[in-house]
């Protein structure tokens, strides 16, 4: 028999007796592995789904889209392409829908389809024929939710602007549809040729114009798109292909999966800490066995191997259990993420994710077990002769540093693997390491502090409980690490979410408007105004809005400013460098809706430059504009720079005279760019009027009255916008919270494990105390003191770290101001109370058992 056989045999025999204790250890790893397998498997499913459904997502081989009717150059390109292919047109915009029979009104997203769209994929309708029947004209297909909201049914008449349509069916499935989009208005489909009858695309309306092409077989969409792009870019026409969409979507979804994966990884690492602590306790209990084996001739290497094999075996077992659990969870993820996914995902087990989970789980178990296992090497055979020898001769193991480095490298590598980037992996590991270091320091500080400044005057039970924090075989470090880390993670998620939501909460003070009328034409302004006033309502506005685009910045035309957004070009280093020095593409290309005003609004604050000078001082210089501070930095402009605007084909040079900060959260007409009065008055414009109606029912009636008289005017209710925003944030955070739940679960398992390992000792101590005359309540109070101290410290340090992390995220990633919600105190209290309860539950057994029974059983 060789040394390998001895190691294997001993590992098996040793594990045999400690199976139940080791089970806890595997449990901690299993939960983390389950989370990883679920998210990685799901990510693989997603990639396959996107690949399979990409063509249906676009519905065509090639699409040209623009914020304006397609320019002649685009039409010419379409004519050429359509010669051997088929084309369709889709125009979409927001509007009010109105059902005369029920007098219900709602903001909807209108899509006008002309031609046999989609070429790929299917819009499913009820009845089936409704989609094809749309083209007959005069009909509308709506989302089922709209019927409910308007109290309407199929067959009713629906008014869109000046047009009247028969509701011919409902649409039950739209390819590539993201559920949360419905929050911003139900979808309504009409035929392209009915568009004119609505008379909704008046001046200033926001619409998207798209043309879709199905190419003849054998024609390469990518090549055609590449050929079209240079000419159409200047015209602000986007050219999309199936491959582009697939690449973009895959990229976005991969990033989402990567971040969810990091949250899962945290759970696994927490499990690793649990493993380390369980192994440390296990080895401490095995000191005698190790010393005896050393006496009878086992080398330190052989013994190290015996316990390493056990740790690895437990890691494999835990990971295998985790893989099984993860496959189950993977089935749940599509439901959790349903509303933010554009594709249908069928959960299929992914071999890659399963193997990865098994490997990563085993590796984490082994890597985290190594450090406590090193203690084996230092065990002297003399311990078999006299126990006290152990304490006398503790030398630092030379392998400690390499093992620590290996552990750090493992965490970085795992994070890099999961996030797909070494940089992110590095930062992640640094963050985790920093948090753990702080928690470790706090726990060591607690141990030393309690010892040093021991409250000798406190009642006996409290002193006993506190002394348990530093007595031999204490669990202080483990519990503080596991609990504190859990509190840190959950606290961070909670704080970030509450800060983001607070930022998005539209400020609806009692004197603020809560209903906006958009797209009011100049000749309608008086009518809308008197409608509001006759109802006794306050009116803000009319505020003029002039749509425009940037033609040049400091003399450089947009065509040369706008960096490319095609994936191939963005990937090379040169493109990236150019991009860093240039204005952001979206800022240059977007359509601006600007206004003019003599005064600063309540929601604005000047940060640089001066507000308009007196009228007389204007002669001989360019008209002034005031730019929002964020936009100024995106455009890389400052006071004195010139921006030339394209206002409906007319060139208008201006000069930046001030930079403003805008509180976007205030529900007021806010603008990126405000012009000096006397500049834009003659330009084509639409108007916005705001009012405040406290009663929701009255708000509905007013919206109806507006639609009846001014069918092109769109009204937006602040309450529904607020709800839509909260829905959206809620959907995204749901997924993150779902993954974070696993960290909490792992934390609980680790805490349970730590408490359970100390239980044996506590039972003995409790029995001894009771033999010496302690009452049950005294034993319980000792436990309460110990675990309350542990819980409080973990909660305080964990939440403290969370505050730091959330502040940093708010400041540097989300760039929002940071505030501490008072409810964070509740989280800290919950952690402390939960820990104390767990400690008490553990001690219940101590007081239940008869002292004699315990002492005899030794």
């Amino acid at each position: 028999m060789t040394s390998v056989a001895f190691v294997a045999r001993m590992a098996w025999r040793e594990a045999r007796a400690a199976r139940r204790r080791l089970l806890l250890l595997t449990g901690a790893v299993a939960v983390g592995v389950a989370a990883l397998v679920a998210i990685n498997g799901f990510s693989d499913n997603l990639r396959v789904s996107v690949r399979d459904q990409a063509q249906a997502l676009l519905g065509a081989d090639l699409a040209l889209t623009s914020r304006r009717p397609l320019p002649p150059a685009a039409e010419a390109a379409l004519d050429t392409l359509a010669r051997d292919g088929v084309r369709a047109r889709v125009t979409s915009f927001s509007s009010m829908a109105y059902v005369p029979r029920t007098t219900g009104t709602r903001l909807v997203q209108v899509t006008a389809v002309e031609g046999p769209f989609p070429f790929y994929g299917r819009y499913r309708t009820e009845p089936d024929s409704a989609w094809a029947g749309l083209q007959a004209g005069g009909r509308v297909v709506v989302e089922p939710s709209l019927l409910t909201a308007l109290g309407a049914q199929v067959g009713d008449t629906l008014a869109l602007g000046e047009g009247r349509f028969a509701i011919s069916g409902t649409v039950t499935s739209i390819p590539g549809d993201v559920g949360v989009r419905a929050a911003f208005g139900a979808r309504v489909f009409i035929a392209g040729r009915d568009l004119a009858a609505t008379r909704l695309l008046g001046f200033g309306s926001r619409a998207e114009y798209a043309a879709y092409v199905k190419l003849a077989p054998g024609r390469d969409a990518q090549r055609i798109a590449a050929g079209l792009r240079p000419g159409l870019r200047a015209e602000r026409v986007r050219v999309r292909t199936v491959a582009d969409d697939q690449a973009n979507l895959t990229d976005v979804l991969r990033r989402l999966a990567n971040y969810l994966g990091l949250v899962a990884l945290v759970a696994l690492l927490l499990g690793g800490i649990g493993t380390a602590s369980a192994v440390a306790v296990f080895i401490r209990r095995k000191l005698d066995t190790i010393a005896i084996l050393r006496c009878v001739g086992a080398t330190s290497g052989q013994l190290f191997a015996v316990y390493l094999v056990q740790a690895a075996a437990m890691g494999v077992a835990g990971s295998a259990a985790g893989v099984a659990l993860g496959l189950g969870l993977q089935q749940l993820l599509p439901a959790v993420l349903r509303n933010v996914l554009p594709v249908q995902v069928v959960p299929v087990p992914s071999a890659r994710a399963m193997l990865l989970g098994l490997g990563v789980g085993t590796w984490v178990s082994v890597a985290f077990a190594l450090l406590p296992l090193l203690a084996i090497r230092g065990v002297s055979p003399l311990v078999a002769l006299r126990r006290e020898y152990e304490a006398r001769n503790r030398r630092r193991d030379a392998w400690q540093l390499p093992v620590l480095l290996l552990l750090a490298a493992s965490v970085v590598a795992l994070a890099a693997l999961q996030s797909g980037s070494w940089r992110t992996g590095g930062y992640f590991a640094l963050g985790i390491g920093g948090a753990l270091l702080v928690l470790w320091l706090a726990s060591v500080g607690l141990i030393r502090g309690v010892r040093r400044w021991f409250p000798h005057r406190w009642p006996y039970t409290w002193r006993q409980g506190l002394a348990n924090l530093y007595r031999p075989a204490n669990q202080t470090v483990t519990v503080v690490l596991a609990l504190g880390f859990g509190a840190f993670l959950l606290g961070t998620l909670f704080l970030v979410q509450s800060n983001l939501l607070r930022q998005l909460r539209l400020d609806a003070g009692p004197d603020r408007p809560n209903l906006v009328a958009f797209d009011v034409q100049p000749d309608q302004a008086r009518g809308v105004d008197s409608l509001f006033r006759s109802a006794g309502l306050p009116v803000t506005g009319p505020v003029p809005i002039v749509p425009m685009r940037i033609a040049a910045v400091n003399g450089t035309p947009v065509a040369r400013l706008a960096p490319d957004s095609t994936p191939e070009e963005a990937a090379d280093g040169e493109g990236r460098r150019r991009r860093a020095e240039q204005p952001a593409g979206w800022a240059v290309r977007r359509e601006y809706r600007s206004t003019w005003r003599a005064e600063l609004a309540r929601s604005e604050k000047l940060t640089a430059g001066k507000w308009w000078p007196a009228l007389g001082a204007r002669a001989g210089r360019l008209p002034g504009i005031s730019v929002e501070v964020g936009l100024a930095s995106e455009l890389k402009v400052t006071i004195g720079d010139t921006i030339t605007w394209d206002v409906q084909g007319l060139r208008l040079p201006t000069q930046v005279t001030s930079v403003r900060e805008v509180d976007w959260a205030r529900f007021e007409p806010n603008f990126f760019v405000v012009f000096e009065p006397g500049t834009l008055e003659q330009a084509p414009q639409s108007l916005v009027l705001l009012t405040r109606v406290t009663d929701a029912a009255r708000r509905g009636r007013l919206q109806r009255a507006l639609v009846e008289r001014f069918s092109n005017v769109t009204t937006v209710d602040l309450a529904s916008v607020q709800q839509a925003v909260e829905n959206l944030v809620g959907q995204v955070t749901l997924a993150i919270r779902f993954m974070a739940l696993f960290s909490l679960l792992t934390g609980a398992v680790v805490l349970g494990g730590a408490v359970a390992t100390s239980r044996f000792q506590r039972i003995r101590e409790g029995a001894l105390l009771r033999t010496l005359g302690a009452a049950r309540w005294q034993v319980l109070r000792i436990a309460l003191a110990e675990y309350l101290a542990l819980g409080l410290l973990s909660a305080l340090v964990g939440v403290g770290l969370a505050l730091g992390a959330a502040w940093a995220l708010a400041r540097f990633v989300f760039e929002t101001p940071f505030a501490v919600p008072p409810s964070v105190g509740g989280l800290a209290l919950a952690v402390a109370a939960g820990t104390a309860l767990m400690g008490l539950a553990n001690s219940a057994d101590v007081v239940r058992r008869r002292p004699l029974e315990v002492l005899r059983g030794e």
Partner: protein
Amino acid sequence: MLRCEGLTQTYLSGGRELTVLKDISFELEAGGFLSIVGPSGSGKTTLLGLLAGLDRPQRGRVVLDGTDLGALSEDERARVRGRKVGFVFQSFQLIPTLTARENVQVPLELQGEEAGTRADELLERVGLGARGHHYPAQLSGGEQQRVALARAFANRPKLLFADEPTGNLDTTTGATIVALMLELNRDFGTTIVLVTHDLELAARARRTIRLADGRVVGDSGR
């Protein structure tokens, strides 16, 4: 078989240097039976640890069957122990997670030898043939010490070190254990070093060394 020269061992205790052994030298021939006696704290156990190669002497040397233990690393000493040395401890020191039979097998398995048959023979020899599948917790103190004896002789050691082997047993059981030890010593020709403060037990050895304050204060074999 066993020779020590000028063994000196000191420890730091509470910041003060504490000399546990001072300049100890003696030699023991093969097949001999030596008892080391002395009051608590006289350095008996420390001396046993050094003689058996469980620790490295700070000064002086120990030569075990021709091998200078001081020149070896801890792992090399472990191999020497595995091949040539057997142990019996005061608190039996069986591995609690292993059955009686498995406890006896361990030293042989470490040598890479087939262990099952020999373990059965030895357990039979100490009168526990039927208890091989029992765990230590299921055995009485005397039975545990008999298993420990079987384990100590499993690898046919040239030297057996016994540290207060009867210290945790009642008089009758203790006597049985000693009788068994002497019987095995006779049959296998094993050299025995016995540490005890029981003078009656020590008197059964052919030679007795008395320790006091870390020095040899008497040697019946000199």
